[in-house]
């Protein structure tokens, strides 16, 4: 076990706590940056998608994992980001400006939703966000003069610094840069007073309110941040899709995003990355598994959502802390080697319908 000798207060809030962290994250960065040289077009594209998922996941994690507000409607923010970006690109705005605008528009809508959702908690919030996503989907499919409805909307070619983005590796580096920026921004927010306030709201609204945190402001802010980041992912997702139509942003996408957060581990940014890897590569795994299954089952059209549901159920039942939680348990098992006790990680259960103990 490693004991850190702290000589400065800032060490408490360092992102990288010690040399081991610095080494491994540096190595990861080098590997990810070198990936286009080693990977083929297909896997590079998949990795790109994983990173887009990760950006959306960071947005959702800020809301679900750190502010404790459930959202079943994040596909709507993804859609808003994607459509805003494509429309503005089509209107001749430069790539970067159009992405910023997409983020701002989604954040604004998110703030609106957050403001409406202020009085709701728990399931009511989940239902309201679900209704919001349904409304958005319907609006997009009906507003044909703007979005093309079900005929779809072609995403224009983007160019960055006068260089057209056509190759896979160009998109890859754009996404990678934005992911790193997003992650750093999110982590910095989390160690600022804003982030601490959000975590306090997650742990108990009443105690947060009693230490002077303005619930309305911070909840709306959390929604806006989360929606803005998801909108950014949506803008990148638009390039990945190439052609936008409302059925690309269904409830299943919202569920996938939530599944990512839950499977990765609620309440950790590393969990987002694990979850994104999981969600991104699950379809490949399913495709491989299909070859071994009997054709009646393998060819069934509803198999994929079913598997998603099954994984969700299994994770909630057996590892509510997700992959990151399992990793923590394995790590502490080896760190404490003969002394590890299962009860260390037991979750507290509450049987009262009150939010005092939450």
């Amino acid at each position, binding site marked *: 076990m490693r004991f850190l000798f702290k000589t400065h207060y800032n060490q408490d809030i360092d992102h990288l706590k010690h040399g081991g962290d610095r080494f491994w994250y540096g190595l990861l960065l080098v590997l990810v940056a070198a990936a286009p040289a080693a990977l083929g077009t297909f896997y590079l594209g998949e990795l790109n998608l994983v990173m887009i998922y990760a950006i959306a996941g960071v947005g959702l994690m800020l809301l*679900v994992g750190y502010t*404790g507000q*459930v959202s*079943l409607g994040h596909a709507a923010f993804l859609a808003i980001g994607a459509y805003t970006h494509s429309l503005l690109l089509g209107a001749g705005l430069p790539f970067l400006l159009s992405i910023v605008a997409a983020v701002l528009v989604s954040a604004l809508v998110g703030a609106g939703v957050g403001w*409406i959702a202020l*009085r*709701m908690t*728990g*399931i*009511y919030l*989940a*239902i*309201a966000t*679900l*209704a*919001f996503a*349904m*409304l958005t989907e*319907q*609006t997009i*499919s*009906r507003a044909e003069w703007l979005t093309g409805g079900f005929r779809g909307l072609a995403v224009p070619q983007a160019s960055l610094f006068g260089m057209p983005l056509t190759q896979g590796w160009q998109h890859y580096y754009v996404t990678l840069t934005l992911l790193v920026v997003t992650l750093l921004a999110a982590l910095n927010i989390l160690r600022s007073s804003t982030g601490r306030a959000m975590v306090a709201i997650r742990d108990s609204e*009443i105690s947060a309110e009693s230490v002077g945190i303005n619930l309305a402001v911070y909840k709306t802010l959390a929604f806006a941040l989360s929606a803005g980041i998801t909108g950014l992912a949506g803008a990148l997702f638009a390039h990945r899709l190439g052609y936008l139509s409302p059925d690309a942003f269904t409830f299943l996408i919202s*569920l996938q995003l*939530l599944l990512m957060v*839950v499977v990765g581990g*609620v309440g950790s940014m590393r969990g987002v990355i694990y979850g994104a890897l999981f969600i991104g590569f699950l379809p490949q795994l399913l495709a491989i598994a299909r070859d071994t299954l009997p054709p*009646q*089952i393998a060819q*069934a*059209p*509803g*198999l994929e*959502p*079913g*598997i*998603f*549901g*099954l*994984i*969700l*159920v299994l994770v*909630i*039942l057996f590892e*509510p802390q997700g992959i990151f939680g399992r990793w923590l348990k394995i790590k502490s098992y080896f760190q404490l080697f003969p002394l590890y006790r299962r009860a260390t990680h037991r*979750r507290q*259960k*509450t*049987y*009262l*319908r*009150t*939010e*005092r103990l*939450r």
Partner: protein
Amino acid sequence: MVNFAQGDLMMLGAFVAVTLIGDFGLPWVLGLLLSVLALAVFGYLLDAFVLRRVLGEPQFAIVMLTIGLGFIFRAVAGLVWGYDPQSFPTPYTGKSLRVGEVVVSYENFAILLGTLILCVVLFLFFRRTRLGIAMQATSQNQLAAYYVGIPVKRVFSLVWAISAGVAAVAGILLAPVSLVQPGMGFIGIKAFAAAVIGGFGSIPGALLGGWIIGIAEQFAGVYLPAGFQEMSAYGILILALILRPQGLFAQIQRKKV
């Protein structure tokens, strides 16, 4: 406890009824009773083996769990019964009732009558019987209910059995009007809207909420441009949540420290 898989339980109920009545040729009433019973048993077992494990964990876990279950049910139903919509034979299909000038088809009349009977039965059950009151107590405070001697776990399972049975009834009533297919459970979201508008824990409220949504959808379909019909239920839901988040007939009072 909240159930996002209710619509899918309804779908399962309808499929079981179709199988029993259409394929096995059971008499209609017997098939209906058997499928309600089957779903009730299924609900009981579902709670006993799956849902009981998350009792006492944050509501988020329960929401996610039931959503996941809904997806599983839909996939399983698709595997077993296929994705082609099936029609549901009833003794009253195609006939209609004439009351003065108004003509109502028996299918819709059955829905009306079935809903009314169901509501009265449930209302009386939750007001008058020991078990119903025990269920309300459990829903309000599990710990206190346990202290006064209510077998909380069994009561929870029974609640799930009842809710699955009611879902089966809803599925059987709906089946003749809309065809039976794995996606029919999506109406469950609207049922949620109804329950939220009326206020959770209030059966008359749910009835009124469903009524409001149904009327609004029809009016939106007639008087507003296309597309508003599908949107109206969600619009009303959001409006209701803004204006009166606790529902029209709220059972739960505002939480106090």
